[in-house]
């Protein structure tokens, strides 16, 4: 194994392959920075060039893209409150308030450091877990996956801050929106009529851009001035952010592991990963008062997880040929072009190739982060530019991001509709993240519940995995509520003394 590890590094150090890795990182950073575009788009762009390319170079190119996107998508999330791709929605929660306070550079520094460490841990996890991956993946059947969706839904409480009722309402509305389109376990289309566009349901990208991007743009324009107040300055720069991350070693480690783990389970989809991690960090922190207002921990947790997840989603892709995310579906297609058959036999017959993938992932994370760090200072200055100069550009980019989903006129109509919805929610103090979580989990929850029932009748309720995850959700909820109550009690106590 060690020999293959070193051998793979030599394979990758070939100048052309390294060049391709850099090209991948560059493309990944570009599509990551542009809101709405993600790894899927980046990979689709290079797919035509893969025919006839050296397989190792092609893999380095694709992994470069996959690894750089979750680093670079932090820019719009932090600087403009617009999710850079579906993997960095939760970063908006605290990253953007930090930018408004003039701590953009610090938030970016923390995010990039967390991204790099998370990405490296993801690559390391991929190496370490390779021998055990199969039994772990196989342990998650439909009933366990259903319980995981419930665990995800239990995050709604903490993401609603001190407005739990409004949060639950928003989540329910998200669940309803998720039912539009093809039903997961029946050949029927709901609320779609003869409008074929709705057969696929609403697009997550368009919903996220509408909910978060448009209301922010409207309010910033109405307020006038720049995103951040000039008198705050850029804060004490990105080194402080890097130190923040290093001071929260345990947090980075924990959330990287959670990110790898959720990425690892095929069928959960990677867009929920950052929200779950954000939920957990809020739930398990003693002092919650600053979350949502610019707590650096709210940036570190999702950012460590969303880079680490790439190591996780590669696992089912390589071992079972089942994509762990939509970008990985494309990666599978590329493997097919190279004539590589995914499956457990990769680990015995083509270990070199597996390690080339792991090395690419590790190196791309390092390069990607360093480039993002270099870019962060000039780009962070954008927050001081009067917003009415930036707005037209950002609106165009957001519309392009939405339009590339299916290139149907309805993409833009729904972007606008969700934008209005998001603005109304923002104005009425209705939290938006629960809506997104409800939407993501709606189809999954319905699918896995029916599948569990069809497979096992009600016997699935007694499966050990189901009971363990149920206990975990309850512990997390009770502990969250307790910590919250004790925090609320300690505040007036402190005030009186």
């Amino acid at each position, binding site marked *: 194994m060690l020999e293959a590890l070193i051998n793979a590094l030599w394979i990758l150090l070939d100048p052309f392959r390294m060049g391709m890795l850099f090209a991948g990182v560059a493309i990944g950073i570009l599509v990551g920075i542009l809101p709405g575009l993600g790894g899927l788009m980046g990979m689709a762009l290079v797919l035509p060039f893969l025919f006839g390319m050296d397989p190792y170079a092609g893999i380095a190119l694709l992994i470069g893209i996959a690894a750089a996107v979750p680093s670079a998508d932090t820019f719009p999330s932090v600087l403009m409150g617009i999710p850079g791709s579906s993997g960095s929605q939760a970063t908006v929660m605290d990253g953007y308030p930090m930018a408004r306070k003039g701590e953009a550079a610090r938030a970016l520094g923390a995010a990039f450091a967390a991204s790099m460490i998370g990405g490296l841990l993801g690559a390391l996890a991929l190496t370490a877990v390779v021998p055990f991956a199969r039994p772990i993946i196989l342990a998650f059947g439909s009933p366990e996956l259903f319980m995981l969706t419930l665990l995800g839904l239990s995050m709604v409480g903490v993401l609603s801050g001190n407005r739990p009722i409004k949060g639950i309402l928003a989540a329910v509305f998200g669940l309803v929106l998720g039912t539009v389109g093809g039903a997961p376990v029946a*050949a029927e289309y709901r609320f779609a009529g003869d409008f*074929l566009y709705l057969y696929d349901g609403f697009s997550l990208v368009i919903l996220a851009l509408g909910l978060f991007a448009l209301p922010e743009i409207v309010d910033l324009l109405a307020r006038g001035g720049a995103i951040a107040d000039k008198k705050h300055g850029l804060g004490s720069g990105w080194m402080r952010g890097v130190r923040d991350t290093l001071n929260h070693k345990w947090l980075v480690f924990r959330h990287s592991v959670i990110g790898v783990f959720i990425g690892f389970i095929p069928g959960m989809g990677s867009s929920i990963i950052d929200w779950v991690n954000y939920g957990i960090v809020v739930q398990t922190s003693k002092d919650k008062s600053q979350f949502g207002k610019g707590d650096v921990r709210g940036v570190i947790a999702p950012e460590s997880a969303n880079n680490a997840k790439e190591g996780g989603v590669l696992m089912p892709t390589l071992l079972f040929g089942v*994509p762990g995310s939509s970008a990985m579906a*494309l990666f599978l297609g590329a493997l097919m072009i190279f004539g590589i058959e995914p*499956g457990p036999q990769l680990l015995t017959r083509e270990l070199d190739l597996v390690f080339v993938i792991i090395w690419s992932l590790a190196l791309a994370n390092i390069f990607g982060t360093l480039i993002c760090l270099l870019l962060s200072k000039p780009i962070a200055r954008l927050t001081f530019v009067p917003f009415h100069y930036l707005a037209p550009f950002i609106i165009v980019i957001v519309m392009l991001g939405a339009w590339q989903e299916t290139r149907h006129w309805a993409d833009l109509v729904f972007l606008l509709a969700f934008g209005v919805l998001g603005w109304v929610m923002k104005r009425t103090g209705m939290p938006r993240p629960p809506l997104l979580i409800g939407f993501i989990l709606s189809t999954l929850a319905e699918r896995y519940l029916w599948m569990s029932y069809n497979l096992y009748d009600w016997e699935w309720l007694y499966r050990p995995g189901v009971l363990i995850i149920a206990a975990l959700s309850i512990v997390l909820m009770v502990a969250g509520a307790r910590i919250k109550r004790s925090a609320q009690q300690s505040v007036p106590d402190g005030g009186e003394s």
Partner: protein
Amino acid sequence: MKKWVKGLCVGMVALSLSAIGSVQASPETYYAGKSIRIVIPFSPGGGTDTFGRLIGQYLGKHVPGSPTVISENVTGAGGLLGSNEFAERVAHDGTTLLTASGHLNLRAFLGLRGLRLDLNALEPVVAAPMGHVTAIATRAGIDKPEDLAQAKGRLTKGITDPIGLLESLIALEMFDLNYRPVPGYSGRGDTRIAFERGELMINTQSTPAYLSRVVPLIEEGKAMPLFAIGFIDADGNPVRDPAVPDMITAPELYERIHGEKPSGMVWEAFKAVVPLVQNTRGTLWMHGDIPDDAKEALRIGVERMVADPEFIAASERILEGYEIIHGDDLGQIKDSMAAASPEVIAFLREMLSTRFGTQFED
């Protein structure tokens, strides 16, 4: 984004060229200065997409006049949006082609609700076949395929989109097996993991996927192959799957169990579904009423392409053990559709709508 900027440029160039040079056409000059757009109604990365892109990569070089070929994924509604665009909103001049999967062809053939693609108005340009193999878990307690009727336990079979699995469902129908359908799986890969995990008892995979990923399970003693779906020749007789020539096919297994060849409505349905799905795993379609010069140019292009050693090398890995269907052999695709009686189509629609709730155009 880049992609359609590029598309726009190419389109503008093509437009200006076609405006200047509307000289007299012949197969040799028809495509000169034109571009061909291949609509792929699936997202990038799947098997059919890869086939479409492979053709897109090499066809342009070989069609007389060397047109620029652009493959474009027009996704949405399970292939309906892209297919309908091709059916209704493009010029019938041979500059737009469609890459369909065998199951998309089947959907069009059966008249799925919302799909407005009429295969009778199209002609195949080139196609590639793909077989399928059905396996059963050893937990079912049988040790040879002939004992299928004695299989024990919940005979769960994962369902994705029922039309997308029709060849395997109709085979189980032929054996009159009382299986338990579990809908909700998002693809055949998903059902394979569930099969490996022990959730599903019966599973059908494409033959290449069977060879690489189910065979290891058989070696571990967790599964047993039941039958290959097999192919149907031009005379309607079952033949073996060239990728697994030693494996018994479903019609042969039926004969072994019942002592007679399969017959009746289910068998007629099998003979209609199997060639359509398996001969056209990837099909490149053109509109039937495009100019003859365009048809001839495409035919020449395909013949030259399949003889190109570079194409042969690149296609080997993507075709996974099967041969490209081109030239006169393409006739069998439409022949098998024409051979299916209206009663067979009605039977299949009835079975899909009562059992799975699939909705069809009236």
